[in-house]
């Protein structure tokens, strides 16, 4: 099939950037979206033009690197799917496709569709960890964790930190990401100890990075490739509220 692409091109962080049109010819419907772009890039390079820069790594839907807004929806908007797992069979011959980078003040564009997501790393550095003093490794199963708690921790731990939640949110809020990290660690006994300090430190960093506030629109949940629930946002709100009155 043949497609008309509108792609955001920006040569560097200080370039204004603009949407540019391309034609993708003979696209195989079994290709992933990234493979389709690979083919477009090969043709661009053969003509001596600059290839379209985009983030990608595992191409298995688990690394969180791919990041593009396709026709107004992060990762193309199929439930629980990253861009690398989005296949061209979801499109029709002759379709026009708009491809843009994540848009947020905290995610500045580096080049074309590549954005700098180190704001997430700095939030993690503030509290996305469990403090463990060195020593002998504890026995496996020495610390029983109720199944329900373990399940909740695992659900939140599925977050791959791709940033689709921020890209989708009307307010550019990172609450689903921060909530997922806080919930992931807070539901285990090892992480529970620091949950209030963690909630406070991570949300303060989130504010400092310039993310927006949560209006409970649940756009993040709808586009999250790991289908993480806004429940984690409520948990983060509760932890932060409790932290105020515990004087921690």
């Amino acid at each position, binding site marked *: 099939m043949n497609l008309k692409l*509108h792609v*955001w091109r920006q040569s560097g962080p200080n370039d204004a950037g603009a*949407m540019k049109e391309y034609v993708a010819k003979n696209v195989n419907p079994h290709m992933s979206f990234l493979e389709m772009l690979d083919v477009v890039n090969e043709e661009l390079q053969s003509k001596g033009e600059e290839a379209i820069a985009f983030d990608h790594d595992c191409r298995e839907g688990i690394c969180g690197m791919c990041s593009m*807004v396709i*026709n*107004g*929806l*992060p990762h193309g*908007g199929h439930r629980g799917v990253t861009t690398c797992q989005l296949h061209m069979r979801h499109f029709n011959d002759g379709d026009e496709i*708009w491809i*843009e980078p994540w*848009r*947020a*003040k*905290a995610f500045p564009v580096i080049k074309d569709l590549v954005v700098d997501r180190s704001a997430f790393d700095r939030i993690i550095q*503030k*509290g996305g*960890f469990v*403090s463990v003093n060195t020593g002998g490794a504890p026995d496996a199963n020495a610390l029983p964790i109720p199944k329900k708690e373990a399940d909740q921790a695992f659900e939140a731990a599925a977050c791959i930190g791709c940033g689709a939640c921020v890209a*989708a*949110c*009307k*307010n*550019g*809020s990172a609450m689903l990401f921060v909530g997922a990290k806080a919930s992931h660690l807070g539901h285990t006994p090892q992480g529970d100890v*620091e949950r209030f*300090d*963690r909630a*406070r*430190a991570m*949300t*303060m960093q989130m*504010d400092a990075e*310039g*993310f*927006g*506030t*949560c*209006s*409970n*629109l*649940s*756009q*993040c949940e*709808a*586009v999250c490739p790991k289908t993480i629930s*806004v*429940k984690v*946002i*409520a*948990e*983060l*709100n*509760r*932890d*932060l*509220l409790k932290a*105020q009155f515990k*004087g*921690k």
Partner: protein
Amino acid sequence: MSQATDAPAPTGEPLIGSLLRFFSSSIGSKVVMALTGAVLWGFLLAHLGGNLMVYFGPETYNHYAQALKGNAALLWAVRGALIAAIPLHFWAAVQSSAKNSAARPVAYAYANRSPARTAAKSMLVTGLVIAAFFVYHLAHFTWHVAHPEQVKLLPSGEVDVYSMLVNGFSVWWISAIYVVAQLLLAQHLSHGIYSLFQHLGLYGASWTPFLKRASLAIGYGLCAAFISIPVAVLLGVVKLP
């Protein structure tokens, strides 16, 4: 060693300072929004309860109005709560809206299609229109400056609140203003009620889906009850004796 010593709150900081800092954070301003929203929602419920007494006739309604005016302690407690809650609700909205518009300096070329209810996306607009309506509503029925010709006195010298209401809503365009404002209020509440629970961290996998539907039902139900009054006047169900 624990890196958690990074925690921003200095130990020994007075509670009030820590609370002020909390309330100006992104989550804290939403907590202010939620708490003041709950106050305003409670007020609406009580206000509706009083308004519906109009269906019991002029005597009951005027008696209720006079009893309310006679109870200065209750009246000022409610007014005090509103005078505190409304500016705080507004301040929280302005503060978070400013953060939100700064958070996405470059807009998408293709409109954001991430699903969300229109009511949820337009809270600021509906809120501002409701605020403007609130001022008009006070000018109409409390301060008697918007339509002073509608104010008649009872033989006892008190304001005849019942006839003021009927005279007011008999004018179709005044009723239309009230109906439109209530429809926007319904939109605002239909998201706001669910949202306030979420901001306060109150979530349950078993009851939150129900809360979302209840939020819609309560929002629209409450406003339908308010709208019934001007409609009843226009239809002649509620009329001057």
